[in-house]
């Protein structure tokens, strides 16, 4: 009965007699040659067999080879459970030795097993395995790859496999094959093929192939330059959006009201921690809706930071209007307390997981990915900007705010409660910071020191833009963001980001020589006080 089942399975899988292969693998004398024959095997049975051999789970049982599963059950080489005459699962005798794998062949087995990953169920695994095979330069992998390509249904993976095949065919003896491979690599603009193509140009004897390879190299080169430019621009825009999001709140508190709120960074921190807390709460209570926690966190961050801002205004800042330097010191103190409080409560570092639909990104050009989280922040920046503009310029409340900021005495005479407007405006500024912090938690870590890293940038944006004008903040954010990301590649190296930042700071300071009041200066209460 056992034999019958095994035979059937071997016949079904067709191209290979697994039983015979297994016997040859098990015998020390034939192990090496058997493995060599398996170099381009594609049968999943072989994978199972080799894995068992490697893990020491291949045994001889009543003259046949069987595999010991993780659950202790035995299966034959075709994967069917081994049962005795009564149909009961059989057991190995205790103390039995597994079939030994020669140590020198361990690497070979490992390599063959790696090849089998191109048949894996996991798309990412197939992709990376195919890529690895392509760069390995081992022509014996051609068969496996071609077979995998035949079975592959996913478009992205097919592209990777075709590229990998082309890379391997570069070494083919047939010039026609080489030519086709070169053309394929040139057309797919694969950067990873550049060293291979360069090597080919060096050695190539066939003039047609050589010319094609050179053309392909040029194509790839222009593509890479174009892609880098697009990439830098996107990075710049995305950094500009980050800067804009984090400085919008400051544009209200500092720009409009003239309050130096050094705790602005900590308001961002509150937003970040709100995202963290909501995420934890969802994980504990509403695991099914975990992907949507962010939609709850965003408004909560707005409220939490706004509330803290309100308390700060009512408790501290209102006594210091007109004394900007004192405000600076006091808010810095408040920031320190909030920061250390967060450290004591949450520990040193926590992180927020992006919702699953947030991972990955858009791939406008091969090898260039715009992560969704970045795109989201650009969108959020635009939305927040629009909402703030609308609020300030198109609503009655906004009109009151502008009136108080422009002429406090006159606004008070006309019955506007300036104290209330002050408090609410400040709270709005901090609430915006909270939203920013919540969003930024997606692209960075959440730790008590986040505020410190944001505060200087935020102030530079608002100061460069000129207080009191939203448009100034926007233009400044875009300028700083783009120049940062364009200077960065020019400097290069591991610390490019930091040097670029320093360079931009110097440029901003230099620029303020000519326009001490920023790009877009405004006359008004804030301007008169701070200038």
């Amino acid at each position: 009965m056992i034999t019958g089942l095994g035979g059937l399975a071997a016949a079904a899988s067709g191209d290979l007699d697994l039983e015979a292969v297994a016997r040859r693998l098990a015998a020390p004398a034939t192990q090496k040659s058997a493995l060599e024959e398996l170099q381009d095997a594609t049968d999943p049975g072989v994978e199972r067999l080799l894995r068992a051999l490697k893990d020491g789970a291949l045994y001889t049982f009543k003259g046949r080879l069987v595999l010991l599963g993780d659950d202790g059950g035995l299966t034959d080489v075709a994967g069917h459970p081994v049962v005795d005459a009564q149909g009961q699962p059989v057991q190995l005798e205790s103390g039995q030795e597994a079939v030994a794998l020669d140590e020198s062949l361990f690497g070979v087995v490992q390599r063959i097993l790696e090849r089998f990953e191109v048949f894996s169920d996991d798309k990412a695994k197939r992709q990376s395995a195919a890529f690895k095979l392509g760069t390995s330069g081992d022509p014996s992998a051609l068969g496996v790859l071609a077979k995998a390509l035949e079975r592959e249904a996913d478009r992205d993976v097919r592209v990777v496999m075709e590229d990998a095949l082309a890379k391997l065919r570069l070494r083919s003896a047939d010039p026609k094959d080489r030519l086709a491979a070169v053309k394929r690599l040139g057309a797919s603009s694969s950067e990873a093929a550049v060293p291979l193509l360069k090597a080919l140009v060096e050695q190539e004897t066939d003039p047609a192939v050589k010319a094609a390879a050179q053309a392909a190299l040029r194509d790839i080169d222009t593509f890479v330059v174009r892609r880098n430019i697009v990439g830098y621009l996107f990075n710049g825009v995305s950094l500009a959006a980050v800067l804009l999001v984090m400085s919008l709140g400051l544009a209200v508190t500092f720009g409009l009201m003239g309050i130096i709120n050094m705790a602005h960074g900590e308001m961002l921190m509150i937003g970040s921690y709100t995202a963290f807390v909501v995420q934890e709460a969802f994980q504990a209570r509403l695991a099914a809706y975990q992907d949507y926690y962010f939609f709850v966190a965003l408004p909560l961050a707005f409220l939490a930071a706004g509330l803290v801002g309100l308390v700060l205004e009512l408790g501290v800042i209102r006594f210091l209007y007109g004394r900007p330097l004192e405000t600076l010191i006091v808010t810095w103190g408040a920031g320190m307390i909030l920061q250390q409080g967060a450290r004591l409560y949450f520990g040193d570092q926590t992180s927020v997981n992006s919702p699953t639909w947030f991972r990955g990104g858009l791939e406008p050009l091969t090898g260039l990915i715009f992560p969704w989280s970045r795109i989201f922040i650009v969108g959020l920046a635009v939305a927040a900007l629009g909402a703030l503009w609308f609020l300030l310029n198109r609503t009655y409340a906004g009109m009151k705010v502008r009136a108080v900021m422009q002429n406090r005495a006159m606004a008070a005479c006309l019955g506007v409660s300036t104290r209330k407007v002050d408090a609410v405006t400040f709270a709005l500024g901090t609430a915006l910071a909270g939203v920013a912090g919540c969003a930024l938690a997606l692209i960075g870590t959440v730790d008590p020191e986040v505020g410190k890293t944001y505060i200087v940038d935020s102030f530079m944006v608002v100061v460069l833009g000129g207080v009191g004008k939203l448009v100034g903040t926007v233009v400044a954010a875009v300028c700083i963001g783009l120049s940062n990301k364009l200077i960065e590649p020019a400097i290069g190296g591991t610390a490019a980001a930091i040097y670029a930042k320093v360079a931009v700071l110097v440029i901003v300071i230099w620029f303020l020589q000519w326009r001490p009041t920023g790009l877009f200066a405004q006359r008004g209460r804030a301007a008169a006080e701070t200038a």
Partner: protein
Amino acid sequence: MSAALTPPLAPKRDRQLVLVALFGAVFVVGLPVANALGFVSDYYLNLFAKYLALAILALGMDLIWGYTGILSLGQAIFFGMGAYSIGMHMMLESSGKGVYGEPVPDFMIWNQVYQLPFFWKPYKYAVVAVASAILLPALFATVIGLLTFRRRLRGTYFAILTQAIAFAVWLMVNRNEMKLGGTNGLTDFKSILGFSLSSPVTLRALYVATAALLVGALLISRAIVRSKTGLVLEAIRDNERRLEFLGYNAAGFKIFVFAVSAALAGLAGLLYAPQVGIITPSQVGVLPSLEIVIWVAFGGRGTLWGALLGAISVNWLRSVLTGTYPRLWPIILGGLFMAVIMLFPTGLVGLAARARALVGRRRTGGPAAVAAPVEEHTA
């Protein structure tokens, strides 16, 4: 009592000089003698050396912030310049004696640097190190001052700009490529001018030098604030526009006082590094700059004694509290920032004066404490 309110143009031999002499007698002579006789432990002497060095830093901050009303958040950079200058010299003095026996400091070996970087070379000479510790900050401050004050960048803008500069410097110094020891800073100093730093005699001598230089700095600061220049500085604080209408070039005075305060900060760093034995980027950033502000505010801004008192008392408090409640210290410091500004704008000196006014009937010419300076805003 206060320097600010005594008529600066008619200096008279008042009790101030007596106080300075008393201060000098206690700290320059008294403490080291007590230490030599065994009444004060080496540890406490060293601790006081640190406080007194930081008091020089506070004096500089008081000159620019307390008297002139300019909030510079870059003082820690100047302090760092002083400390790093002498630190580099001491590193070179002991190089070759390190673990690796190479002619460059050990930390460079860790970063695969085997040739002394060019900007380290002049620091082989003690004279250069000392000169650069004091003059480099002054020069840097002058450059910043020229770039900002002449263009009417003032008030909060200046504070934000110096903060940004401090942040940028902090970012840079943290990098290993700057060849200044990265995050670990400079440490493991062995000797200064050939005298071993592990000997109590050397440390005592350093302490005496620190205390004496503090008295010197106090006298210089006093001379400045009591001079006509000092009057102009206070006028800048109280109403810069009016001063300009009177025909004064406020920018020149501001650059001057900024440079002096930077030089004092550099001097403080110069004295601090050998006695504490380490200088790291964390002492160069924005937070340390703001801490200096709080020392001055706590002691009493606009009075030189306030700066001294504030630096010594807050740092003493810090030594005590970071020992027992290290995790609460930032909260205490933050609370101090808020409480001092909101509740005691005149600081310890103001409180003392108020207490005296309550106790004694006799008032010696006007209110004793300097009121919180009139703000620059003209709503």
